[in-house]
C-alpha cells in the first residue's frame, strides 16, 4: 500500500494534468492564429488606394487644394480624437455654443459666407474679407442695418432637398424658437427687434411637412415674406435681414455656430427641433442633413462617427482654382472618413505609430515625444491662434486694486518661461483682450506686449508704497483642477517670477465648483469681489471666439456689460462706452479702430489682467499629429468660428 501524503499523490497525476494544459494551450494558440489571420484581412483601416490626381506639397498652403472636382475619391481617412462632442452631433445645439468639437463643421454643414482660410494661413490673421459660400453675393445697406444675401442655385442637402432662401429663413427662426423667442437669440447679440415676433413652430412645421420648402405653399411664402420680421425672403434665392441697430459685423456672425445650414424640412419631418433645453434627440447620432461634401453614415455613441462623400455635392463642379480660393468648399479626397473617440493618450499614440489612423491627437508627454521626432511626424499647429490664456487680477480688492501693483506683476512675469512651461513653447505673445487673429482689431494702438523687466517692476512696487514687496500679503492664485495639467506649471513660473520682486504667491488648485462659484456677469463678479481671490489663472481651456467680430472678446472681458469673462472685475466707464460704440458705428471702420485704440491705451496703462499667450496647439499641450508622407502636410484646421474646437477640416486632407 502506498503511503498517503499529499505531495506524493499530487505528483502521481502530473501527466494527465500536463497533457490537459498542453491541449488548452494548443487550442488557445490555434484560435489566436485564426483570429490573427482574420484580422489582417478585415481590420485594415489605412487607405489601400489613393486618389490618383490629388497632389500635395509642403511649400504652400494653397497647393493642398488642387484636388479637382473630377478626382475620383477613394480610401478611408481615419482620425483619432480624444473627446466625444458635447451635445453629440446635434447641430440644434448651436444657440448653446455646442456641439464641441464640431466634426461636422465645414464638412457636413456650410455657411452662407466663408472665412478665407488661405489668407489666414498666409497672414496668420483674420482678413475681414469673406469668400462666397452658400451665398454667391451679399451686400449691406449704408447704415449697416439691412443685409441682403443672394444664394447660389443648384445646391441640395444630402437628402436631396433643395437649399434655398426658404431653408435659410427656417433655420434662422428655428434658432429664435429654440431660445424661447429671446431678443439675443442670434449669437447672444442684441441686434434684432423681436418685439411681437412669434414663430409658430408647430403650425410652420405642419405646413412644411405638407408642402416642403422646395416649392413652399402660398401660406408658407406669405409667412416668410413678411417684411416686418427680422428676416424675410424676397425670392427663392434672396433673403434679407433687418437689424434694429447698425452692426457692421453681422456678416461675421454668419460664420459662427448658428450660421451652419441644415435641412429644416428633414427636421420637421423627423419630429421637429424639440424645445429649448430639450432638443429632439433623434438628431444626436443621426445628424440633420447639410450641404457639405460629406454626410454622416453611421455613429456609435462615444465610439466613432463615419462620414461618406455626398455624391451630389454642389461643390463638385467647382474648379481647382475656385477651391484654392476657398478651401473650405473642398469636396475631399477620401471617400470615407472615420473619426474615433479614443480618450487614452497611449492608445492614440499607438494607433498613429501603427498606421491604424492617419491623424491622431497627441497630448502631454506623448506630444513631446512626437514633437521630438520631427523627421517622422508632422503636427497641426494653428498659425492664426485665437485661444487666449491670461491671469485675472481682482481689480476690486487689496492689493491688486492698485494699478502700480498690477503693473509690477505684469512686468515681472517671464512670458517665455510661461509659454514653455504651459504650452511647450507653442504660444504667441499677445496683448488682450483681443486675439492676434483678429487682424486690424488686434492691438490697434500697436503696443508692445509687456516685457520681463524686474527693475521696472520693483519701481512700480516702490511707487505703490511697497518697496521690495514689503506690505503686500501673500497673494492667493486659483487654478481650476481641470486645467491643472498646463496651468500648474505656469503658476509655478509666475510664483517664481513674482518672488523676485518680493511678492509671495500662494497657489491653490481648486475644484471647478470653487473656481467658478462667484463668477458670472460683471454685476455678479462685483457683488462677489471680496470672495474672489486676487489672482486666478484663465479658463480651463483658454478663451476662444464665438464668432468673428471684435465685439466678442472686447465686450466680454473688459466691459461692465459683460455677461461672462470679466473676472478681473475691471471697471472703466470710458472703455465700456468705447467698446459699446463699435457696434453702432455703421461701416466706419476708422471710427471703430480709433475707439479700440483709445480703449486699448487705457487697458495697457491699467493692466487689469496679465495677458499671457495665445495657444498655437488646439489642446494647449497637444494637437493632431500625422506620419509624414501618409497625408498632405498642409491641410487646413477649422477656422476659429466655434470656440476652441480647432480640428482638422478633413475635406482638405489628402493622401501624402
Amino acid at each position, binding site marked *: 500500500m502506498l503511503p*498517503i501524503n499529499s*505531495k506524493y*499523490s*499530487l505528483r502521481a*497525476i502530473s501527466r494527465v*494534468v500536463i497533457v490537459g*494544459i498542453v491541449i*488548452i494551450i494548443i487550442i488557445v494558440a490555434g484560435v*489566436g492564429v485564426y*483570429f490573427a489571420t*482574420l*484580422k489582417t484581412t*478585415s*481590420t485594415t*483601416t489605412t487607405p489601400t488606394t489613393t486618389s490618383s490626381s490629388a497632389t500635395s506639397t509642403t511649400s504652400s498652403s494653397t497647393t493642398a487644394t488642387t484636388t479637382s472636382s473630377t478626382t475620383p475619391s477613394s480610401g478611408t481617412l481615419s482620425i483619432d480624437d480624444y473627446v466625444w462632442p*458635447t*451635445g*453629440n452631433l446635434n447641430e440644434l445645439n448651436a*444657440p*448653446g*455654443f*455646442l456641439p464641441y468639437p464640431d466634426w461636422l463643421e465645414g464638412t457636413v454643414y456650410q455657411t452662407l459666407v466663408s472665412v478665407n482660410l488661405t489668407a489666414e494661413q498666409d497672414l496668420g490673421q483674420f482678413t475681414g474679407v469673406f469668400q462666397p459660400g452658400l451665398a454667391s453675393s451679399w451686400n449691406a445697406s449704408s447704415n449697416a442695418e439691412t443685409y441682403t444675401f443672394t444664394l447660389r442655385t443648384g445646391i441640395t442637402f444630402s437628402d436631396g432637398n433643395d437649399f434655398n432662401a426658404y431653408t435659410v429663413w427656417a433655420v434662422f427662426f428655428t434658432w429664435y424658437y429654440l*431660445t*424661447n423667442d*429671446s431678443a*439675443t437669440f442670434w449669437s*447672444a447679440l442684441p441686434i434684432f427687434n423681436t418685439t411681437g415676433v412669434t414663430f409658430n413652430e408647430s403650425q410652420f412645421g405642419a405646413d412644411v411637412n405638407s408642402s416642403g420648402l422646395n416649392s413652399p405653399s402660398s401660406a408658407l411664402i406669405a409667412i416668410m415674406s413678411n417684411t416686418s420680421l427680422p428676416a424675410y425672403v424676397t425670392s427663392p434665392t434672396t433673403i434679407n435681414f433687418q437689424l434694429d441697430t447698425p452692426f457692421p459685423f453681422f456678416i461675421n456672425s454668419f460664420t459662427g455656430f448658428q450660421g451652419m445650414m441644415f435641412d429644416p424640412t428633414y427636421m420637421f419631418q423627423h419630429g421637429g427641433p424639440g424645445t*429649448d*433645453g*430639450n*432638443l429632439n434627440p433623434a438628431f*444626436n447620432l443621426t445628424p440633420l442633413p447639410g450641404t457639405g461634401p460629406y454626410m454622416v453614415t*453611421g455613429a*456609435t*455613441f*462615444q*465610439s*466613432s462617427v463615419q462620414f461618406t462623400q455626398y455624391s451630389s455635392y454642389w461643390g463638385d463642379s467647382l474648379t481647382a482654382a475656385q477651391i484654392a480660393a476657398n478651401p473650405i468648399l473642398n469636396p475631399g479626397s477620401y471617400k*470615407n472618413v472615420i473619426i*474615433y*473617440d*479614443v*480618450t*487614452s493618450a*497611449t*492608445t492614440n499614440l499607438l*494607433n498613429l*505609430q*501603427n498606421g*491604424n489612423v492617419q491623424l491622431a491627437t497627441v497630448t502631454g508627454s506623448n506630444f513631446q515625444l512626437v514633437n521630438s521626432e520631427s523627421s517622422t511626424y508632422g503636427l497641426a499647429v494653428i498659425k492664426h491662434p485665437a485661444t487666449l490664456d491670461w491671469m485675472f487680477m481682482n481689480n476690486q480688492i487689496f492689493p491688486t486694486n492698485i494699478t502700480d501693483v498690477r503693473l509690477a506683476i505684469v512686468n515681472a512675469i517671464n512670458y517665455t518661461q510661461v509659454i514653455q512651461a504651459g504650452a511647450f513653447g507653442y504660444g504667441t505673445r499677445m496683448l488682450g483682450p483681443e486675439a492676434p487673429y483678429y487682424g486690424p482689431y488686434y492691438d490697434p494702438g500697436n503696443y508692445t506686449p509687456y516685457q520681463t523687466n524686474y527693475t521696472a517692476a520693483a519701481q512700480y512696487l516702490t511707487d505703490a508704497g511697497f518697496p521690495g514687496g514689503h506690505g503686500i500679503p501673500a497673494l492667493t492664485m486659483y487654478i481650476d483642477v481641470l486645467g491643472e495639467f498646463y496651468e500648474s506649471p505656469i503658476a509655478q513660473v509666475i510664483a517664481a517670477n513674482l518672488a523676485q520682486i518680493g511678492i509671495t504667491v500662494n497657489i491653490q488648485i481648486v475644484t*471647478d465648483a*470653487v473656481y*467658478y*462659484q462667484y463668477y*458670472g456677469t460683471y454685476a455678479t463678479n462685483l457683488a462677489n469681489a471680496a470672495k474672489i481671490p486676487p489672482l486666478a489663472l484663465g*479658463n480651463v481651456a483658454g*478663451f476662444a471666439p464665438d464668432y468673428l467680430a471684435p465685439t466678442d472678446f472686447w465686450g466680454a472681458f473688459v466691459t461692465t456689460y459683460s*455677461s*461672462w*469673462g470679466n473676472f478681473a472685475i475691471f471697471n472703466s466707464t470710458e472703455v465700456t462706452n468705447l467698446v459699446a460704440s463699435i457696434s453702432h458705428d455703421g461701416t466706419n471702420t476708422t471710427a471703430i479702430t480709433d475707439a479700440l485704440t483709445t480703449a486699448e491705451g487705457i487697458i495697457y496703462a491699467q493692466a487689469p489682467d496679465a495677458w499671457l499667450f495665445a495657444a498655437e496647439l488646439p489642446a494647449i499641450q497637444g494637437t493632431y499629429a500625422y506620419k509624414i508622407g501618409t497625408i498632405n502636410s498642409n491641410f487646413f484646421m477649422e477656422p476659429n468660428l466655434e470656440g476652441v474646437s480647432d480640428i482638422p477640416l478633413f475635406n482638405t486632407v489628402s493622401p501624402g
Partner: protein
Amino acid sequence: MRRLGTGVLVLFGVSVITFVLAHSVSSNPLVAWFGRGIEENPGLAQHYFQIYHLNDPLYIQYFYYIDGLLHLNLGWAPSAEEPLTTIVSQTLPWTLELIFLSLIFTAIIGITSGILSARFAGRLPDKILRGLYLTGMASPAFFIAIVLIVVFSGIFHIFPTSGAYNVSTYVSPPTITHIPMLDALITGRWSTLGMLLWYAILPALSISLGVYGILTRVLRSNMIDLLSSNFIRAARARAVSENRIFLWHAFKNSLVSVITLLAIIVNISLVADLFAEEIFAYPGMGKFAVDSALALDYPSILATTLIFATIIVLVNLGADIMYAFVDPRIRYG
C-alpha cells in the same frame, strides 16, 4: 427576503452618498456642463434650473430624483443631450458582454493556474504562478490595459488597439437581446461574432488579469487542504486513481468555494471595466461613466453609479442563492 431588503438599503445609501458627492463637485453645474454658452443663454439656463430643481435645497432635489427613479426615469444627460435611459440602453449591453467575457477568461486562467499551483505546490512552477498572479493583483487596472495594448497591439500587432468592432466592415446583427455578441450568436452571424470577440479579447483580458489571482489562491489553498482530508484518504484506500481523486474529488469540492468568490470577482471586474473601456475606447457604460465624471455631468454619474451598484447587489444576491443551493448546509435567514 432579508437579503433583498439589505440590497435595497444598500442602493438607497449609494444613491444618497453619490447624490451628495456629485452635487458637491460643482456649485454651478450648468457652467460645468455647457461652459460660457449657458451664461449667454438665460432661457436654456432657466430650463435646466427647472428640470433639475437647482434652486431648491439639496434634499428636495434628491426627492425629485428618487421620484424619477421610481418611475424608471434616470434623468437627462446634459453632456450627451440624451435621456439617460437611452444612453444606458446603448452602452450597458457592451459592458455586460465585456464583463461576461472577462469572467470566462478569469475562470479559465484562474482555475488552470490554481490547479497547476496546487499540483506543484511549493515548487518552481507554483512560485512562478504565484509571482504572476500577485503581479496582476498588485497592478492597477489601467496599467495592465496599457501593457496589453503596447505588447499585443503596439509590438506584435495581433489585436486592435481600440473600439468594439471594425467600423468599416461591421454589420450589426439583428437585434434580439440588444447584446451584440449574443445576437450574433443566436442569429448565426459568425463573422460578426468573431469580430466582436476579437475586439473584446484585450479589454476582457485586462480585466481578468487583475482579478484571476483571487480565484487561483483560493482554489490552490482549498485543493491542497482537501487532498489531505479524510475522504480523500478513504478514496485512496479504495484504490481510486490519483487522476480521479485530483480532478473529481478535490477539484469538484473546491469549486464550492469558487462560487463564494463570484461576487467579489464581479465587483472587482466592474471597477476594472471602467479603466478597460476608457483605455480601449470600448463604447460601454464604463467609458460613459468616466467621460461623464470628466465632464462633471452628475446626472450621468449618478445613473451609472446606481446601475453598477444594482449589478453588484444582484450578483451578491445571486451568489448567496447559488451558494445555498450547492451547499445545503448554508441557510440564510
